[in-house]
């Protein structure tokens, strides 16, 4: 039931809540099953449409949330007559449920949630079968509910290759948020990429329990560098640890957007994401009445996620080696996540000859050999 190795307060509370709720409401008919209203998502006129965006952080972060906001701007440009709603910095609490319910109350036709709110969001979507929901990094689907994410592990592996080549000691540092699958996948892809070119490579992780905490991120970055790391990577929504790296003259790679102006000498590259095309396409489908739930969408390398242009301090040979891997992924469908892969305890998890598929990568919940500091 509750996965102790993957603790999450939300999951735990939900479980308790579901158990209690199910026993109370199970036979009363008060619970509307999510299948209700299948096919009710018909076409909508542009002037009647209300497109809502709920974000986890501030849109001024120049990172994750700003990329989603750029998506909204693109949708607005494509469908100027529709009405738009946007709310920032929604906490992972019952406030999230209230916020999304507010969207429904304001007649939203399509709701994008730019972070995983899980059951906090499901509670709203289950009772609003005529509203289309899209959850970024989500894990459940329904007739009015789809999730989407990017195959960030591909560019991350490429960044790992660059890190492995640029690090002298092989000690890499990673500023993480929570021990959740997207973080496991990112850390693992980074470590595997580095190890493919530098057998000494190891990755030390510090979790700061937030996606957006400039102060925690800069302290974590400092602690990693003090501990001997000579390359920093992380999965933060902002650029704080890049500033630490710049001050210390250590290379660092980032997430989300091009933030090289905050550390021009240190900036290596970034795992950049771009939702504009995807959001416009989904909105078009919703207006035309062709949008469907039950979809699990992972945007591939080159279409929504990629590495950014290399930073000024990245040597030519590093660029070439890393880009060769990227080209192989794009042209030959190269999948570097092939056995044998051991976990951080040294146990073989993926046997030689086996390959991890997209869903296995998306739901990765153990750390590979060479990663320390990430609870498994």
């Amino acid at each position: 039931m509750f996965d102790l190795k993957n603790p999450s307060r939300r999951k735990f509370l939900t479980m308790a809540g579901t158990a209690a709720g199910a026993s109370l409401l199970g036979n009363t008919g008060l619970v509307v099953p999510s299948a209700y209203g299948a096919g009710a998502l018909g076409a909508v006129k542009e002037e009647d449409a209300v497109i809502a965006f709920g974000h986890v952080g501030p849109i001024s972060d120049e990172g994750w949330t700003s990329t989603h906001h750029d998506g909204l701007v693109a949708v607005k440009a494509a469908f100027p007559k529709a009405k738009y709603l946007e709310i920032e910095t929604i906490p992972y609490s019952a406030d999230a449920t209230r916020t999304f319910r507010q969207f429904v109350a304001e007649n939203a036709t399509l709701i994008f949630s730019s972070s995983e709110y899980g059951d906090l969001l499901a509670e709203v979507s289950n009772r609003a079968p005529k509203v289309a929901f899209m959850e970024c990094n989500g894990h459940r689907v329904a007739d009015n509910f789809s999730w989407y994410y990017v195959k960030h592990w591909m560019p991350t592996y490429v960044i790992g290759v660059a890190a492995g080549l640029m690090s002298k000691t092989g000690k890499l540092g990673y500023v993480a948020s929570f021990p959740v699958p997207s973080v496991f996948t990112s850390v693992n892809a980074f470590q595997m990429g580095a190890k493919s070119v530098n057998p000494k490579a190891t990755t030390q992780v510090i979790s700061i329990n937030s996606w957006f905490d400039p102060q925690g991120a800069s302290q974590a970055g400092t602690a990693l560098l003090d501990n001997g790391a000579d390359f920093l990577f992380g999965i933060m929504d902002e650029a704080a640890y890049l500033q630490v790296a710049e001050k210390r003259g250590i290379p660092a790679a980032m997430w989300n957007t091009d933030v090289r102006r905050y550390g021009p000498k240190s900036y290596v590259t970034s795992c950049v994401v771009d939702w504009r095309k995807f959001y416009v396409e989904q909105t078009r489908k919703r207006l035309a009445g062709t949008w469907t739930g039950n979809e699990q969408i992972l945007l591939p390398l080159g279409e929504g996620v990629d590495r950014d242009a290399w930073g000024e301090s990245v040597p030519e040979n590093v660029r070439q080696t890393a880009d060769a891997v990227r080209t192989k992924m794009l042209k030959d469908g190269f999948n570097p996540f092939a056995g044998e892969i051991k976990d951080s305890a040294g146990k073989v998890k993926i046997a030689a000859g086996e390959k991890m598929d997209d869903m296995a990568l998306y739901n990765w919940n153990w750390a590979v050999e060479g990663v320390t500091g990430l609870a498994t």
Partner: protein
Amino acid sequence: MELLTGILFTAFLAGGVLGLAALGEVLSERVGVFNLGLEGLMALGGVTAIITVTIVPNPFVGILGSLAIGLVFGAVFATATVLFRANQVLCGLALTIMGTGLSASIGKNYAGHPAKVVFEGVAIPYLSDLPVLGKAFFSQNVMVYVVFIVLPIAVHFLMFKTRHGMKMRAVGENPAAADAAGIAVMTIRFWYVTIGASLAAAAGGYLTLAFVPSWSEGITAGRGWIATALVIFAGFRPFNAVLGALAFGIITSLGFVGQARNWPIAPAMLSTLPYLGTIAFMIVPVFVWKRMQQKMAAPAALGRPYFRDER
């Protein structure tokens, strides 16, 4: 050794925030006014500093901006608590709630942006080359020297070596007697509460210009409360206050070093260290050192508004 240097370096940086706010609170509490608004003042000071340096790219101007906003809100607080004799605890809590909320809304467009300019470290010649401690002590930014050396000396001198300081303490201990002796109780209280609030806001500016360095909602993360506790722990003495702040800085940086070194403690546990430290600091001395309770006792009139009619 590298590690120790790193811990101390971060400890001074992190502790400076607490030290500055605690010094402000020492001034305020010594004249008998309990200011629970530090958290809100720090948040306001932090966002003001960021906005100021966006307009004028000079960190000193940024700190001046924080001091100014602290003066404004400090004067409002002092008007309520000193002149109108409102309940100090409630006014302090109101100031915290208003400060955190207001700073979040005016800082909305600045959240996550790195500061345009920051306080850079200044290496003091020769001294900064000392092994281990040299870098931690003598290559800090100028604010660290101000908080750990200049201000404590100034406040200590003012409070304990001057006639004016004696008046201040008299106002905090027994305002009625001070009043009878011809000391302007209200004036002294009003100004030191305002100046104290101003220092607390400057602590916020220090946080966003020297330590983090950027603004985001909730960046103060309870530091105002820790500083409030620190003042009591320090027995309302300026040097103790900054030393306590340094101890907290060490505890804070240990949390991250612990993770980097893979200490077998859960990361969530390590990040609660500063708060656990607060509780320990409050409780332990009382048990260990009975005499300290007397010596470190709060000013007798702390928290009580002064009514001349009741004299």
